[in-house]
């Protein structure tokens, strides 16, 4: 069956141990997590998880259902890239002396829409936001020039393009059921 790249947006109560429970569902179903971001959401007391993985749609459905089954998970949904606004970022630490020797470096950085955010005699820092592929392209070109000291890429973060706020709706619906 066809596998695709999915982004899961998951909301939970802010209790200890939930991240463990969520990742354990992936491990049990033998799906690798490609990236993971956790942070407080716009709703007080609610945490948001952005998780990406490659799997079939059936599996994505199963995973989100099994995650949502965890008592303190509020919602879990999966999305394809066209349903989301997505952001990833990277930091590339490069050697300043080598950069000064090679004029290609700053040209490549500018071409890829990167930003140099720090320069000192020993190293410089390049920052780039974008999609995974753009980030990896910039990195690999710089790396080929042999100037890279460190590279780090963030997990994906994403918000839905939909005009409907499913979490708010869910919370409102549940509050109505509270006795």
């Amino acid at each position, binding site marked *: 069956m066809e596998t695709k790249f999915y982004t899961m947006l998951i909301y939970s109560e802010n209790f200890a*141990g939930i991240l463990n429970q969520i990742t*354990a569902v992936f491990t049990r179903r033998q799906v690798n997590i490609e990236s993971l971001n956790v942070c407080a959401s716009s709703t007080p007391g609610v945490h948001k998880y952005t998780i990406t993985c490659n799997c079939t749609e059936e599996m994505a*459905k199963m995973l989100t*259902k099994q995650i*949502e*089954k965890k008592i*303190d998970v509020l919602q879990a949904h999966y999305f394809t890239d066209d349903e989301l606004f997505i952001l990833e970022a990277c930091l590339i630490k490069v050697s300043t002396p080598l950069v000064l020797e090679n004029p290609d470096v700053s040209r490549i950085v500018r071409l890829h829409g990167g930003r140099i955010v720090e320069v000192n005699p020993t190293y410089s820092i390049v920052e780039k936001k974008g999609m995974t592929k753009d980030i990896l392209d910039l990195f690999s070109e710089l790396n080929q020039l042999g100037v890279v000291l460190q590279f780090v890429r963030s997990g994906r973060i994403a918000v839905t393009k939909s005009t409907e706020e499913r979490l708010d709706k869910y919370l409102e619906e549940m509050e109505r059921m509270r006795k």
Partner: protein
Amino acid sequence: MKQKITGAEALMRSLEAEGVDVIFGYPGGAIMPTYDALYDHRKTLNHILVRHEQGAAHAAQGYARVSGRVGVVLATSGPGAMNTITGIADAMIDSTPMVVVCGQVGAAMLGTDAFQEVDVIGVTQPITKWAYQIRRAEDVAWAVSRAFYIARSGRPGPVVLDFARNAQTGLVDYEPAKVDFIRSYRPVPVPSDETIQQAADLINQSERPLVLVGQGVELGDAREELRLFLERGGMPAGCTLLGLSALPTDHPLNMGMLGMHGNLGPNVMTNRCDLLIAVGMRFDDRVTGNLDTYARQAKVIHFDIDPSEINKNVTVDVAVVGDCKQTLARVTALMQERRHDAWVEGFAPYRKQETEKVIEPAIHPQEGPLLMGEVVRRVSEATEHRAVLVTDVGQNQMFGCRYFQFSEGRSVVTSGGCGTMGFGLPAAIGATFGAPDRTVCLFVGDGGLQMTIQELGTIMEQGAPVKIILLNNNFLGNVRQWQYLFFNKRYSFTPMLNPDYEGIAKSYGIPSRTVTEREDLDDAIREMLVTPGAFLLQCAVKEEDNVLPMTPPGANVDEMMLEIEN
């Protein structure tokens, strides 16, 4: 001014507020403050001292399965908690409501490898509905109420409360708590009228419907709703292992047991029906066999309370996600009164074939050694099919479930999803507390009995009236059968040297009798049943008997072997 009480005392009051009347447990260092508090609550909270914490967990399961109430376990930290793990996992897969409270080192020492510290939450999170560490006395009332609510609501399951020592001794202004709402948890989804209509339409259009009855019917207390549903639609049904007593065995629409060692009719007809209606069951691989060929010709309706069961193993046409007590009634109201006489009669030749080839030889053998099947059927008859059946795991379990018959609900206590040897004896003890007015019959093998044999001590102390029927074949019989069939009869470590079981029973003050001859069986069963309290009936059964029919692992559901060629 309110008087402050300890967290341990708060636990006692919270348990009482939940209506707990029995606790299965075993004390130890990290839970001592709680045991001290329990000493003053002995009248309301009947604590049953087991002989091993695994026994406590299985006893709580047995209690819960027959009573529908939450089983409660109390254990110490570290090794005590770890000994309950098998029972917790078993309760999880078999949807049994249970709350396990175990001691933990004080919060200040957490994570320091303190004496008898184990990361119980880390270990139990994957095998519980909820696992929570109580680190402050203030949290006791809330955590206990939440634990019981989670354990018993929706699809039931086990909850672990890891009770730090400082939270047991700390003082708190106790306020009873009542959790009956968790905003991230929707225990009972309610399907739309449209879904109900779709299900009814499929049923009304069907010519050859087959209903698969699972434990969900018992858990949802929906036996009556199921009966009306079947009778209105004139629909034949098969029951899963855990669903066996959800429908009386002698109901004319009950076609028997599903699964690897189930009855021929419902298994074969699964691949002939035009509509498969699963109620409160999860399409376990022991029921479906090869999924690629399973009921491919049929439309499928799945009634279940757990959305994550839908489309997990079998893709369905209509999912009715909700409490089957309500959903069955709602669908039934939209159903035409139907009969499917020809279709129902189509099961008869399979029943006849199985009866001649397998059942009769198993329950009415004319010669040769005693057979498990005849012992089981004779006990069922002697108890007028009204007893609670508890089994261990192995051939004893399969013969027990095949040949015991049921007239009342909540009458099967067996380890289904986990297949836990050693489950039987403690579960039977628990069942005597959960259903004190019923006869509890345990069928257990010589292997499984020895896995939790120490619980004979609990029986002795409590006078728990368990009728223990030991089906002794001097083998780990079920594994031997597989070795016979699939490993060239190489009996690798399945023959077993047995102790003198009657001698053991005697040491525990349990009356016993051994039967080797067929003509003594009825009298021995009579003696067992008229003897007050516990009894051990050892039956020296055929050593190398095989459970039939059998769907070999991975074979198609309708490919059952009725006999084994040599």
